[in-house]
Protein backbone atom coordinates (compact mmCIF):
# COMPACT_ATOMS: atom_id res chain seq x y z
CA UNK A 1 0.00 0.00 0.00
CA UNK A 2 1.50 3.35 -0.94
CA UNK A 3 1.51 6.28 1.43
CA UNK A 4 -0.57 8.47 -0.81
CA UNK A 5 -3.53 6.21 -0.15
CA UNK A 6 -3.47 7.16 3.52
CA UNK A 7 -6.18 9.83 3.25
CA UNK A 8 -8.35 7.49 1.19
CA UNK A 9 -8.27 4.98 3.99
CA UNK A 10 -8.99 7.40 6.81
CA UNK A 11 -11.07 10.28 5.50
CA UNK A 12 -14.30 8.49 6.21
CA UNK A 13 -13.31 8.43 9.89
CA UNK A 14 -13.83 12.20 9.96
CA UNK A 15 -17.47 13.24 9.68
CA UNK A 16 -16.67 16.93 9.26
CA UNK A 17 -14.67 16.37 6.08
CA UNK A 18 -17.80 15.79 4.07
CA UNK A 19 -19.41 19.10 4.90
CA UNK A 20 -19.58 22.20 2.75
CA UNK A 21 -18.75 25.81 3.52
CA UNK A 22 -20.40 28.64 1.60
CA UNK A 23 -21.77 25.95 -0.69
CA UNK A 24 -18.32 24.57 -1.52
CA UNK A 25 -16.84 21.31 -0.21
CA UNK A 26 -14.74 22.06 2.84
CA UNK A 27 -10.97 21.94 2.39
CA UNK A 28 -9.64 22.11 5.90
CA UNK A 29 -6.07 23.37 5.93
CA UNK A 30 -6.03 24.81 9.43
CA UNK A 31 -4.77 21.72 11.20
CA UNK A 32 -1.95 23.45 13.05
CA UNK A 33 -4.61 25.48 14.86
CA UNK A 34 -6.63 22.38 15.64
CA UNK A 35 -7.05 19.03 13.95
CA UNK A 36 -10.41 17.45 13.23
CA UNK A 37 -11.57 14.45 15.26
CA UNK A 38 -12.04 10.89 14.07
CA UNK A 39 -15.31 9.16 14.89
CA UNK A 40 -13.57 6.98 17.47
CA UNK A 41 -12.71 10.08 19.49
CA UNK A 42 -16.17 11.60 19.14
CA UNK A 43 -17.80 8.32 20.07
CA UNK A 44 -15.53 7.76 23.06
CA UNK A 45 -16.79 11.00 24.55
CA UNK A 46 -20.41 10.20 23.77
CA UNK A 47 -20.05 6.71 25.14
CA UNK A 48 -18.51 7.97 28.35
CA UNK A 49 -21.18 10.61 28.88
CA UNK A 50 -23.99 8.20 28.03
CA UNK A 51 -22.76 5.20 29.91
CA UNK A 52 -20.24 5.65 32.65
CA UNK A 53 -19.84 9.26 33.61
CA UNK A 54 -18.92 9.86 37.24
CA UNK A 55 -16.41 11.95 39.09
CA UNK A 56 -13.12 10.13 39.38
CA UNK A 57 -10.51 9.02 41.92
CA UNK A 58 -12.43 9.42 45.14
CA UNK A 59 -15.52 7.41 44.40
CA UNK A 60 -15.89 3.84 45.60
CA UNK A 61 -18.86 3.07 43.35
CA UNK A 62 -18.76 1.19 40.10
CA UNK A 63 -19.21 4.07 37.67
CA UNK A 64 -16.51 6.06 39.45
CA UNK A 65 -14.21 3.07 39.07
CA UNK A 66 -14.94 2.68 35.37
CA UNK A 67 -14.39 6.36 34.76
CA UNK A 68 -11.19 6.41 36.83
CA UNK A 69 -9.77 3.41 35.02
CA UNK A 70 -10.54 4.87 31.61
CA UNK A 71 -9.09 8.24 32.52
CA UNK A 72 -5.97 6.78 34.09
CA UNK A 73 -5.46 4.47 31.15
CA UNK A 74 -4.83 7.58 29.06
CA UNK A 75 -2.06 8.61 31.43
CA UNK A 76 -0.53 5.20 30.79
CA UNK A 77 -0.99 5.59 27.02
CA UNK A 78 0.69 9.00 27.06
CA UNK A 79 3.55 7.59 29.12
CA UNK A 80 4.02 4.75 26.62
CA UNK A 81 3.63 7.04 23.64
CA UNK A 82 6.36 9.46 24.73
CA UNK A 83 8.69 6.97 26.38
CA UNK A 84 8.26 8.34 29.87
CA UNK A 85 10.29 6.57 32.54
CA UNK A 86 7.25 6.16 34.79
CA UNK A 87 3.55 6.93 34.49
CA UNK A 88 3.46 9.41 37.35
CA UNK A 89 5.73 11.75 35.42
CA UNK A 90 2.72 12.53 33.22
CA UNK A 91 0.58 15.38 34.55
CA UNK A 92 -2.76 16.11 32.92
CA UNK A 93 -3.26 19.79 32.12
CA UNK A 94 -5.79 21.86 30.21
CA UNK A 95 -3.39 22.06 27.27
CA UNK A 96 0.11 23.21 26.39
CA UNK A 97 -0.44 26.73 27.62
CA UNK A 98 -1.61 25.49 30.99
CA UNK A 99 1.35 23.09 31.18
CA UNK A 100 3.96 25.77 30.47
CA UNK A 101 2.33 28.07 33.02
CA UNK A 102 2.53 25.24 35.55
CA UNK A 103 6.28 24.97 35.00
CA UNK A 104 6.77 28.75 35.05
CA UNK A 105 4.70 29.24 38.19
CA UNK A 106 5.81 26.20 40.14
CA UNK A 107 9.37 25.43 39.04
CA UNK A 108 10.03 28.98 37.89
CA UNK A 109 8.90 30.88 40.96
CA UNK A 110 10.98 28.54 43.12
CA UNK A 111 14.13 28.50 41.03
CA UNK A 112 14.39 31.79 39.17
CA UNK A 113 15.86 34.74 41.05
CA UNK A 114 16.83 38.33 40.34
CA UNK A 115 19.40 38.62 37.62
CA UNK A 116 18.83 35.13 36.23
CA UNK A 117 18.38 34.57 32.52
CA UNK A 118 15.88 32.47 30.59
CA UNK A 119 16.41 31.77 26.90
CA UNK A 120 13.69 30.94 24.42
CA UNK A 121 13.87 30.90 20.66
CA UNK A 122 12.60 33.70 18.52
CA UNK A 123 10.16 31.26 16.92
CA UNK A 124 8.26 30.33 20.09
CA UNK A 125 4.50 30.46 20.31
CA UNK A 126 3.26 33.10 22.75
CA UNK A 127 2.50 30.23 25.12
CA UNK A 128 6.25 29.66 25.50
CA UNK A 129 7.09 33.35 25.81
CA UNK A 130 4.50 35.16 27.91
CA UNK A 131 4.60 32.86 30.98
CA UNK A 132 8.38 33.43 31.12
CA UNK A 133 7.97 37.17 30.61
CA UNK A 134 5.53 37.28 33.51
CA UNK A 135 7.93 35.25 35.64
CA UNK A 136 10.88 37.44 34.69
CA UNK A 137 8.95 40.57 35.49
CA UNK A 138 8.08 39.23 38.93
CA UNK A 139 11.59 38.04 39.67
CA UNK A 140 13.55 40.78 37.86
CA UNK A 141 15.09 38.15 35.64
CA UNK A 142 15.78 38.50 31.92
CA UNK A 143 14.18 36.74 28.96
CA UNK A 144 16.43 36.62 25.94
CA UNK A 145 15.58 35.32 22.46
CA UNK A 146 17.73 32.97 20.41
CA UNK A 147 17.86 34.06 16.78
CA UNK A 148 16.27 32.30 13.84
CA UNK A 149 17.83 32.16 10.36
CA UNK A 150 15.95 33.66 7.41
CA UNK A 151 15.07 30.15 6.19
CA UNK A 152 13.30 29.46 9.47
CA UNK A 153 15.89 27.26 11.12
CA UNK A 154 17.28 27.89 14.54
CA UNK A 155 20.60 29.74 14.78
CA UNK A 156 22.60 27.21 16.76
CA UNK A 157 25.62 29.47 16.91
CA UNK A 158 23.52 32.11 18.57
CA UNK A 159 22.28 29.47 21.00
CA UNK A 160 25.85 28.45 21.85
CA UNK A 161 26.90 32.01 22.32
CA UNK A 162 23.88 32.84 24.44
CA UNK A 163 24.51 29.79 26.62
CA UNK A 164 28.09 30.92 27.20
CA UNK A 165 27.28 34.55 27.64
CA UNK A 166 24.17 34.35 29.81
CA UNK A 167 24.50 31.03 31.65
CA UNK A 168 20.72 30.69 31.60
CA UNK A 169 18.75 28.80 34.22
CA UNK A 170 16.25 27.60 31.66
CA UNK A 171 16.00 27.15 27.90
CA UNK A 172 12.64 26.89 26.14
CA UNK A 173 12.39 25.56 22.61
CA UNK A 174 9.52 24.57 20.37
CA UNK A 175 9.85 21.05 18.96
CA UNK A 176 8.14 22.04 15.71
CA UNK A 177 7.16 25.60 14.83
CA UNK A 178 3.47 26.22 14.25
CA UNK A 179 4.25 29.12 11.90
CA UNK A 180 7.23 27.83 9.95
CA UNK A 181 6.88 24.08 10.24
CA UNK A 182 10.56 23.82 11.19
CA UNK A 183 11.43 20.74 13.23
CA UNK A 184 14.06 21.91 15.65
CA UNK A 185 17.03 19.71 16.64
CA UNK A 186 15.71 19.46 20.19
CA UNK A 187 18.15 16.72 21.15
CA UNK A 188 21.10 18.95 20.31
CA UNK A 189 19.51 21.98 21.95
CA UNK A 190 18.83 20.04 25.14
CA UNK A 191 22.32 18.56 25.16
CA UNK A 192 23.91 21.99 24.83
CA UNK A 193 21.57 23.54 27.39
CA UNK A 194 22.18 20.75 29.86
CA UNK A 195 25.93 21.03 29.40
CA UNK A 196 25.55 24.72 30.25
CA UNK A 197 23.61 23.81 33.39
CA UNK A 198 20.17 24.89 32.17
CA UNK A 199 16.83 23.17 32.63
CA UNK A 200 15.02 22.59 29.31
CA UNK A 201 11.36 22.94 28.36
CA UNK A 202 10.28 21.59 25.00
CA UNK A 203 6.95 22.71 23.54
CA UNK A 204 5.73 19.66 21.65
CA UNK A 205 2.32 21.03 20.65
CA UNK A 206 3.04 20.66 16.94
CA UNK A 207 5.20 17.58 17.30
CA UNK A 208 2.66 15.28 18.92
CA UNK A 209 0.43 15.06 15.81
CA UNK A 210 3.27 14.48 13.40
CA UNK A 211 6.35 12.91 14.96
CA UNK A 212 7.42 10.05 17.17
CA UNK A 213 8.47 11.60 20.46
CA UNK A 214 10.73 10.03 23.04
CA UNK A 215 11.64 11.58 26.35
CA UNK A 216 14.62 9.33 26.75
CA UNK A 217 16.27 10.40 23.51
CA UNK A 218 15.28 14.08 23.55
CA UNK A 219 16.89 14.56 26.93
CA UNK A 220 14.73 17.49 28.04
CA UNK A 221 13.54 18.16 31.58
CA UNK A 222 9.98 19.18 30.72
CA UNK A 223 7.86 18.45 27.67
CA UNK A 224 4.35 19.74 26.98
CA UNK A 225 1.68 19.02 24.40
CA UNK A 226 -2.01 19.56 23.80
CA UNK A 227 -4.67 17.07 22.75
CA UNK A 228 -6.68 19.02 20.21
CA UNK A 229 -3.90 19.33 17.65
CA UNK A 230 -3.38 15.56 17.75
CA UNK A 231 -6.92 14.48 16.77
CA UNK A 232 -8.03 14.66 20.40
CA UNK A 233 -10.40 16.94 22.29
CA UNK A 234 -9.76 20.55 23.28
CA UNK A 235 -9.13 21.45 26.90
CA UNK A 236 -6.76 18.61 27.70
CA UNK A 237 -3.03 18.19 27.36
CA UNK A 238 -0.09 17.11 29.42
CA UNK A 239 3.13 18.07 31.08
CA UNK A 240 5.87 15.51 31.27
CA UNK A 241 8.66 16.25 33.73
CA UNK A 242 11.58 14.49 35.30
CA UNK A 243 10.43 12.85 38.48
CA UNK A 244 13.03 14.45 40.72
CA UNK A 245 12.08 17.90 39.47
CA UNK A 246 8.35 17.28 39.79
CA UNK A 247 8.80 15.89 43.28
CA UNK A 248 10.76 18.94 44.36
CA UNK A 249 8.29 21.45 42.91
CA UNK A 250 5.57 23.01 45.04
CA UNK A 251 1.99 22.54 43.88
CA UNK A 252 0.52 25.28 41.71
CA UNK A 253 -3.26 25.03 42.00
CA UNK A 254 -4.79 24.10 45.34
CA UNK A 255 -8.00 22.14 45.88
CA UNK A 256 -9.40 18.64 45.84
CA UNK A 257 -7.31 15.68 44.60
CA UNK A 258 -3.96 17.39 45.08
CA UNK A 259 -3.95 17.06 48.85
CA UNK A 260 -3.03 14.29 51.19
CA UNK A 261 -4.82 15.81 54.11
CA UNK A 262 -6.29 19.24 54.85
CA UNK A 263 -6.71 21.09 58.10
CA UNK A 264 -6.57 24.72 59.11
CA UNK A 265 -3.46 23.89 61.10
CA UNK A 266 -1.67 22.61 58.05
CA UNK A 267 -2.21 20.78 54.82
CA UNK A 268 -0.05 18.08 53.28
CA UNK A 269 0.08 17.47 49.57
CA UNK A 270 -0.43 14.36 47.52
CA UNK A 271 2.30 12.72 45.48
CA UNK A 272 2.88 13.29 41.78
CA UNK A 273 1.03 13.28 39.46
CA UNK A 274 -1.94 14.18 41.67
CA UNK A 275 -0.10 16.98 43.46
CA UNK A 276 -0.47 19.01 40.26
CA UNK A 277 -4.03 18.00 39.41
CA UNK A 278 -6.39 20.01 41.58
CA UNK A 279 -10.11 19.75 41.04
CA UNK A 280 -12.30 17.71 38.74
CA UNK A 281 -10.42 17.28 35.47
CA UNK A 282 -11.77 17.18 31.91
CA UNK A 283 -12.66 13.49 32.24
CA UNK A 284 -14.28 12.87 28.87
CA UNK A 285 -11.43 14.75 27.24
CA UNK A 286 -8.84 12.70 29.05
CA UNK A 287 -10.50 9.48 27.96
CA UNK A 288 -10.89 10.62 24.37
CA UNK A 289 -7.29 11.84 24.25
CA UNK A 290 -6.21 8.25 24.83
CA UNK A 291 -8.43 7.14 21.97
CA UNK A 292 -6.83 9.77 19.73
CA UNK A 293 -3.37 8.41 20.57
CA UNK A 294 -4.60 4.90 19.78
CA UNK A 295 -5.99 6.16 16.50
CA UNK A 296 -2.71 7.84 15.54
CA UNK A 297 -0.68 4.81 16.51
CA UNK A 298 -3.07 2.60 14.59
CA UNK A 299 -2.13 4.54 11.46
CA UNK A 300 1.51 4.87 12.41
CA UNK A 301 3.44 8.08 12.97
CA UNK A 302 5.89 6.99 10.28
CA UNK A 303 3.14 6.95 7.66
CA UNK A 304 1.66 10.20 8.87
CA UNK A 305 4.98 12.00 8.81
CA UNK A 306 5.89 10.56 5.43
CA UNK A 307 2.52 11.55 3.97
CA UNK A 308 2.73 15.07 5.35
CA UNK A 309 6.27 15.54 4.11
CA UNK A 310 5.06 14.67 0.62
CA UNK A 311 2.24 17.16 0.98
CA UNK A 312 4.64 19.90 2.04
CA UNK A 313 6.82 19.29 -1.01
CA UNK A 314 3.81 19.12 -3.28
CA UNK A 315 2.40 22.36 -1.87
CA UNK A 316 5.69 24.21 -1.97
CA UNK A 317 6.32 23.37 -5.60
CA UNK A 318 2.75 24.18 -6.64
CA UNK A 319 2.93 27.52 -4.84
CA UNK A 320 6.23 28.39 -6.51
CA UNK A 321 4.34 28.95 -9.74
CA UNK A 322 2.38 31.85 -8.27
CA UNK A 323 4.09 35.17 -8.99
CA UNK A 324 5.20 37.26 -6.03
CA UNK A 325 4.47 34.46 -3.60
CA UNK A 326 7.14 33.59 -1.07
CA UNK A 327 7.12 30.57 1.19
CA UNK A 328 8.17 31.50 4.71
CA UNK A 329 10.07 28.70 6.41
CA UNK A 330 11.98 26.42 4.10
CA UNK A 331 13.83 24.20 6.54
CA UNK A 332 14.63 20.70 5.33
CA UNK A 333 12.90 19.10 8.27
CA UNK A 334 9.32 20.30 8.52
CA UNK A 335 5.96 19.19 9.83
CA UNK A 336 2.90 19.77 7.65
CA UNK A 337 2.93 23.56 7.72
CA UNK A 338 3.41 25.93 4.78
CA UNK A 339 3.38 29.64 5.55
CA UNK A 340 3.50 32.21 2.78
CA UNK A 341 3.17 35.86 1.85
CA UNK A 342 2.13 37.37 -1.46
CA UNK A 343 3.70 40.71 -2.29
CA UNK A 344 1.21 43.55 -2.21
CA UNK A 345 -1.63 41.53 -0.67
CA UNK A 346 -2.68 41.40 2.92
CA UNK A 347 -2.97 37.83 4.26
CA UNK A 348 -6.34 38.72 5.77
CA UNK A 349 -7.74 39.51 2.32
CA UNK A 350 -6.36 36.31 0.87
CA UNK A 351 -7.64 34.20 3.76
CA UNK A 352 -11.10 35.73 3.51
CA UNK A 353 -11.30 35.02 -0.21
CA UNK A 354 -10.10 31.45 0.32
CA UNK A 355 -12.81 30.97 2.93
CA UNK A 356 -15.36 32.05 0.35
CA UNK A 357 -14.19 29.15 -1.77
CA UNK A 358 -14.49 26.64 1.07
CA UNK A 359 -10.78 26.62 1.91
CA UNK A 360 -10.02 27.06 5.62
CA UNK A 361 -6.57 28.50 6.24
CA UNK A 362 -5.23 30.70 8.99
CA UNK A 363 -3.77 34.16 8.51
CA UNK A 364 -1.99 36.57 10.81
CA UNK A 365 0.81 36.16 13.29
CA UNK A 366 -0.21 32.66 14.49
CA UNK A 367 0.58 33.64 18.08
CA UNK A 368 4.21 34.16 17.09
CA UNK A 369 4.41 37.95 16.91
CA UNK A 370 8.09 38.17 17.84
CA UNK A 371 8.95 35.81 14.99
CA UNK A 372 6.88 37.85 12.55
CA UNK A 373 8.55 41.05 13.73
CA UNK A 374 11.99 39.42 13.46
CA UNK A 375 11.19 38.45 9.87
CA UNK A 376 9.74 41.84 9.01
CA UNK A 377 6.28 40.41 8.32
CA UNK A 378 4.10 42.86 10.19
CA UNK A 379 0.86 41.52 8.69
CA UNK A 380 1.80 37.92 9.36
CA UNK A 381 1.46 35.13 6.87
CA UNK A 382 -1.13 32.93 5.22
CA UNK A 383 -0.67 29.43 6.58
CA UNK A 384 -1.82 26.14 5.12
CA UNK A 385 -1.36 23.25 7.52
CA UNK A 386 -1.93 19.58 6.90
CA UNK A 387 -3.05 16.46 8.70
CA UNK A 388 -3.05 12.75 7.99
CA UNK A 389 -6.32 13.13 6.05
CA UNK A 390 -5.20 15.99 3.80
CA UNK A 391 -4.99 15.11 0.09
CA UNK A 392 -2.91 16.44 -2.77
CA UNK A 393 -6.16 17.32 -4.50
CA UNK A 394 -7.14 19.54 -1.63
CA UNK A 395 -3.84 21.35 -1.89
CA UNK A 396 -4.33 21.75 -5.64
CA UNK A 397 -7.77 23.23 -5.04
CA UNK A 398 -6.32 25.59 -2.46
CA UNK A 399 -3.63 26.75 -4.89
CA UNK A 400 -6.20 27.43 -7.61
CA UNK A 401 -8.40 29.25 -5.13
CA UNK A 402 -5.43 31.34 -4.05
CA UNK A 403 -4.74 32.31 -7.65
CA UNK A 404 -8.35 33.36 -8.02
CA UNK A 405 -8.15 35.40 -4.82
CA UNK A 406 -5.05 37.18 -6.04
CA UNK A 407 -6.77 37.96 -9.34
CA UNK A 408 -9.74 39.43 -7.54
CA UNK A 409 -7.47 41.67 -5.51
CA UNK A 410 -5.31 42.81 -8.42
Amino acid at each position, binding site marked *: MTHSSLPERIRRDFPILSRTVH*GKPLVYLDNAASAQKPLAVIEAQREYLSNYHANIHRGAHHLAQLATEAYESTRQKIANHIGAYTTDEVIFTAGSTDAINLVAQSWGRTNIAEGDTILVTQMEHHANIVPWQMLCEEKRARLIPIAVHPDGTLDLDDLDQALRQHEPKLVGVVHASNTLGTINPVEAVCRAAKAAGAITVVDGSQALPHLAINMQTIGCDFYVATGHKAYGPTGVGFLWGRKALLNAMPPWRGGGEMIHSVSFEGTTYNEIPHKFEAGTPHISGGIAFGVALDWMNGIGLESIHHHETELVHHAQSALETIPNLKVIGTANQKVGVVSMVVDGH*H*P*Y*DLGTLLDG*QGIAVRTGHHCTEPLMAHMGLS*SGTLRMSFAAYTTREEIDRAVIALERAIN*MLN
Partner: protein
Amino acid sequence: MSADLIASRQSEVIEEFSLFDDWMDKYEHLIELGKDVPEIDSGKKTDEHLIKGCQSRVWLAADEQHDGTVTFTADSDAIITKGLVGLMVRVLSGAEAQAIADADLQFLDTIGLHQHLSPTGSNGLASMVKQMKLYAAALAARRS
Protein backbone atom coordinates in the same frame (compact mmCIF):
# COMPACT_ATOMS: atom_id res chain seq x y z
CA MET B 1 -33.39 63.73 11.18
CA SER B 2 -30.03 62.02 11.46
CA ALA B 3 -31.47 58.73 12.67
CA ASP B 4 -33.47 58.58 9.43
CA LEU B 5 -30.36 59.48 7.53
CA ILE B 6 -28.48 56.53 9.00
CA ALA B 7 -31.42 54.22 8.37
CA SER B 8 -31.81 55.27 4.78
CA ARG B 9 -28.10 54.90 4.11
CA GLN B 10 -28.26 51.39 5.54
CA SER B 11 -31.15 50.56 3.22
CA GLU B 12 -29.14 51.90 0.32
CA VAL B 13 -26.22 49.62 1.13
CA ILE B 14 -28.54 46.66 1.62
CA GLU B 15 -30.13 47.28 -1.76
CA GLU B 16 -26.77 47.64 -3.39
CA PHE B 17 -25.62 44.31 -2.01
CA SER B 18 -28.88 42.53 -2.80
CA LEU B 19 -27.64 42.36 -6.40
CA PHE B 20 -25.16 39.65 -5.38
CA ASP B 21 -26.28 36.18 -4.26
CA ASP B 22 -22.92 34.70 -4.72
CA TRP B 23 -20.41 34.99 -1.92
CA MET B 24 -17.55 35.74 -4.31
CA ASP B 25 -19.50 38.42 -6.17
CA LYS B 26 -20.28 40.13 -2.90
CA TYR B 27 -16.62 40.19 -1.97
CA GLU B 28 -15.65 41.34 -5.41
CA HIS B 29 -17.92 44.34 -4.83
CA LEU B 30 -16.49 44.89 -1.36
CA ILE B 31 -13.00 44.90 -2.81
CA GLU B 32 -14.06 47.49 -5.40
CA LEU B 33 -15.50 49.62 -2.62
CA GLY B 34 -12.28 49.19 -0.68
CA LYS B 35 -10.23 50.36 -3.62
CA ASP B 36 -12.44 53.43 -3.97
CA VAL B 37 -12.17 54.52 -0.34
CA PRO B 38 -9.82 57.48 -0.43
CA GLU B 39 -6.67 56.95 1.56
CA ILE B 40 -6.75 58.71 4.84
CA ASP B 41 -4.46 61.81 5.07
CA SER B 42 -1.00 60.54 5.78
CA GLY B 43 -1.04 62.93 8.73
CA LYS B 44 -3.83 60.82 10.21
CA LYS B 45 -2.22 57.45 9.56
CA THR B 46 -0.52 57.64 12.93
CA ASP B 47 -0.51 55.50 16.03
CA GLU B 48 -2.93 57.93 17.60
CA HIS B 49 -5.56 56.97 15.05
CA LEU B 50 -4.63 53.31 14.87
CA ILE B 51 -7.00 50.57 15.97
CA LYS B 52 -5.11 47.33 16.17
CA GLY B 53 -7.11 44.27 15.25
CA CYS B 54 -5.10 41.15 15.63
CA GLN B 55 -4.78 40.85 11.85
CA SER B 56 -5.57 43.96 9.84
CA ARG B 57 -5.03 47.46 11.10
CA VAL B 58 -7.58 50.26 10.93
CA TRP B 59 -7.08 54.00 11.17
CA LEU B 60 -10.00 56.18 12.15
CA ALA B 61 -10.23 59.94 12.35
CA ALA B 62 -13.31 61.72 13.70
CA ASP B 63 -14.01 65.42 13.28
CA GLU B 64 -16.67 67.31 15.11
CA GLN B 65 -18.51 69.84 12.98
CA HIS B 66 -20.07 73.09 14.18
CA ASP B 67 -23.57 71.79 13.58
CA GLY B 68 -23.09 68.82 15.95
CA THR B 69 -22.51 66.28 13.24
CA VAL B 70 -19.42 64.12 13.01
CA THR B 71 -17.28 63.47 9.98
CA PHE B 72 -15.36 60.21 9.89
CA THR B 73 -12.52 59.11 7.68
CA ALA B 74 -11.03 55.65 7.91
CA ASP B 75 -8.49 53.41 6.29
CA SER B 76 -7.08 49.91 6.58
CA ASP B 77 -4.08 47.97 5.36
CA ALA B 78 -6.32 45.11 4.19
CA ILE B 79 -8.54 45.89 1.24
CA ILE B 80 -11.57 43.94 2.44
CA THR B 81 -11.38 45.62 5.81
CA LYS B 82 -11.05 48.89 3.96
CA GLY B 83 -14.23 48.14 2.07
CA LEU B 84 -15.96 47.42 5.36
CA VAL B 85 -14.74 50.52 7.15
CA GLY B 86 -15.70 52.47 4.05
CA LEU B 87 -19.27 51.18 4.39
CA MET B 88 -19.33 52.19 8.04
CA VAL B 89 -18.11 55.67 7.23
CA ARG B 90 -20.63 55.96 4.40
CA VAL B 91 -23.46 55.07 6.79
CA LEU B 92 -22.39 57.13 9.80
CA SER B 93 -20.31 60.07 8.65
CA GLY B 94 -22.12 63.40 8.67
CA ALA B 95 -24.86 62.25 11.02
CA GLU B 96 -25.59 63.89 14.36
CA ALA B 97 -23.55 62.70 17.30
CA GLN B 98 -26.55 61.40 19.22
CA ALA B 99 -27.87 59.48 16.23
CA ILE B 100 -24.48 57.85 15.74
CA ALA B 101 -24.31 56.88 19.40
CA ASP B 102 -27.78 55.32 19.16
CA ALA B 103 -27.43 53.74 15.73
CA ASP B 104 -28.55 50.16 15.31
CA LEU B 105 -26.18 48.87 12.66
CA GLN B 106 -28.07 45.93 11.25
CA PHE B 107 -26.97 46.25 7.68
CA LEU B 108 -23.83 44.12 7.86
CA ASP B 109 -25.96 41.34 9.24
CA THR B 110 -28.54 41.73 6.51
CA ILE B 111 -26.00 41.63 3.73
CA GLY B 112 -24.36 38.60 5.31
CA LEU B 113 -21.13 40.17 6.46
CA HIS B 114 -21.85 40.17 10.18
CA GLN B 115 -18.97 37.85 11.01
CA HIS B 116 -16.61 40.72 10.31
CA LEU B 117 -18.23 42.61 13.15
CA SER B 118 -17.88 39.93 15.81
CA PRO B 119 -16.39 41.35 18.98
CA THR B 120 -13.65 38.76 18.94
CA GLY B 121 -13.08 39.45 15.26
CA SER B 122 -9.58 39.99 14.17
CA ASN B 123 -9.88 42.77 11.64
CA GLY B 124 -10.41 45.74 13.95
CA LEU B 125 -13.86 46.60 12.58
CA ALA B 126 -15.76 45.95 15.81
CA SER B 127 -13.29 48.06 17.77
CA MET B 128 -13.66 50.81 15.21
CA VAL B 129 -17.44 50.88 15.46
CA LYS B 130 -17.16 50.91 19.24
CA GLN B 131 -14.83 53.86 19.04
CA MET B 132 -17.09 55.74 16.60
CA LYS B 133 -19.96 55.35 19.01
CA LEU B 134 -17.96 56.28 22.10
CA TYR B 135 -16.69 59.39 20.37
CA ALA B 136 -20.17 60.39 19.28
CA ALA B 137 -21.67 59.67 22.70
CA ALA B 138 -19.04 61.78 24.43
CA LEU B 139 -19.64 64.60 21.99
CA ALA B 140 -23.41 64.42 22.37
CA ALA B 141 -23.07 64.49 26.16
CA ARG B 142 -20.81 67.49 26.00
CA ARG B 143 -23.25 69.44 23.80
CA SER B 144 -26.40 68.70 25.76
